């Protein structure tokens, strides 16, 4: 058609070049994704090949032993479960509470900004630093050699809580911030006060995000070895802890312990331990994804 062009200048869409660039960029990004996935797949394949033959009922129900044929990870498995339970108990209320305060109550001033920036920074502190901090404040009291909690579950859980709190706070803040302001205004317009608005309108729609963030933070805590090694001092445990003030071991430590042994059989045991740890981690992540999807569709209805 011969419409007068009102703009002077040339349009040269060059669709062929754009298509080539588009295809190259696509391949590049696909490759980037593959690097990560292939790396993980190789690792899992290697561990499975080595460890699968060693996984049996006896491995899951026996305590560690000097004889690889009789060794199991029961004490480490229960240690991990105990530690998770206690850490979640401390982290969820404190983390979500801090997130609610920062998002809903805190005035927007310099002090709040400083707190926010430091929470983000804390999420990046190496975990061994938390381990040493845990020894300092929970195992020994600051500045004295007098035992405070000793190297017990409670000290480990408190230390891990410090480690994952920033992550839980950040994730919870993200999901609270994602709640549309119209929900809050809708609730205020019906005469609700601040806490009622938060409880009735904000938290229900932020819930799935908070839950997902918390579970992912917990799965980070499960895999941490460094701070727990600092707390437990690599103790050899052949019982299931009965209360939070007993000494304990966890899966990453048991694996670390087995890897360090010279005999090949213990290396295979370590691989088997890694499989158990991976199964727990992947299950937790799957639960997080499942819950997120479930509550997302509900809130859209």
């Amino acid at each position, binding site marked *: *058609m011969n419409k007068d062009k009102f703009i002077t200048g040339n349009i040269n869409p060059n669709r062929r070049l754009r298509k080539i660039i588009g295809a190259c960029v696509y391949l590049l990004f696909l490759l980037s994704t593959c690097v990560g996935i292939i790396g993980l797949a190789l690792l899992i394949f290697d561990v499975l090949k080595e460890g699968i033959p060693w996984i049996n009922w006896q491995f899951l129900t026996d305590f560690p032993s000097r004889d690889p044929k009789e060794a199991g990870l029961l004490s480490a498995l229960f240690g991990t479960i105990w530690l998770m339970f206690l850490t979640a108990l401390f982290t969820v209320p404190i983390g979500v509470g801090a997130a609610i305060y920062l998002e809903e109550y805190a005035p927007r001033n310099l002090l709040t900004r400083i707190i926010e920036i430091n929470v983000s920074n804390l999420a990046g502190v190496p975990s061994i630093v938390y381990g040493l901090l845990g020894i300092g404040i929970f195992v020994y009291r600051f500045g004295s050699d007098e035992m405070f909690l000793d190297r017990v579950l409670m000290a480990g859980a408190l230390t891990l809580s410090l480690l994952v709190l920033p992550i839980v706070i950040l994730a919870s803040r993200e999901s609270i911030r994602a709640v549309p302001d119209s929900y809050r205004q809708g609730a205020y317009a019906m005469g609700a006060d601040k806490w009622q608005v938060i409880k009735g309108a904000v938290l229900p729609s932020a819930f799935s995000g908070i839950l997902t963030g918390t579970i992912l933070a917990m799965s980070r805590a499960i895999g941490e070895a460094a701070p727990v090694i600092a707390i437990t001092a690599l103790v050899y445990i052949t019982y299931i802890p009965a209360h939070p003030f007993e000494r304990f071991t966890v899966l990453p430590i048991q694996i670390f312990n087995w890897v360090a042994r010279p005999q090949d059989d213990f290396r295979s045991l370590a691989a088997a331990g890694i499989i158990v740890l991976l199964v727990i981690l992947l299950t937790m992540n799957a639960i997080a994804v499942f819950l997120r999807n479930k509550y997302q569709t509900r809130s859209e209805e």
Partner: protein
Amino acid sequence: MADSTVISVKGLNVYYGDFQAVKDVDMEIKRESVTALIGPSGCGKSTYLRCLNRMNDLIMGASIQGEVLFENRNIYDSNVDATEIRSRIGMVFQKPNPFPKSIYQNIAFGLKVNGFSGDMDEAVEKSLKQAALWDEVKDRLNDSAFTLSGGQQQRLCIARTLAVEPEVILMDEPASALDPIATLAIEDLVRELKTNYTIVIVTHNMQQAARVSDETAFFMVGEDRSGYLVEHDDTQKIFTNPTNRRTEEYITGRFS
């Protein structure tokens, strides 16, 4: 096909997964005129609009049957490049959606994407003038587009569309998020633009359809929740003497 037809739709069906959203639409859209699409919510008029420049390609699970002939070429043929179609059939959305960039860069984006070489300043100025926005923004072209009012943002989005020099402009309820004065400014603009462009406009506002359009197409929702075309004729005929009883009922407000 008559020479005055720019888009000719034949037997168009649109599906979202298993759900049929639009059923058996045939329509000829006249060059350099304004065609209004009206009808109740959920009647598929926005879905239909998005088929005319393949924007529905971007929606997961959407599929179409039938033909959309643009200048005698089916835009859904496998050898047709959707980006080319969209550079010739532009779109303005319900809510103003300027990019988080300056006013100037909002206009320049489409030109850059399409390999423009020439005087960019002049092209930006002419596009803004065509959208009747130049006088209001000429002293602050480098300000963020978000500093504009809603009505100005929508005219910026129209200017952005015009800069690429499309032949057809699709508008999906372009004034529904604006106040009455800004709405009138958009309507004036639509009437002006039809001397150079073909415009297809979806609207919920029947007075708006009557005010700006030359032809009106009325869509309805069927028992099975699929949308279909009831009647398409000169706007004056639709609003004074419609053929179909349901068109009359809708226009006189007896149901919605």
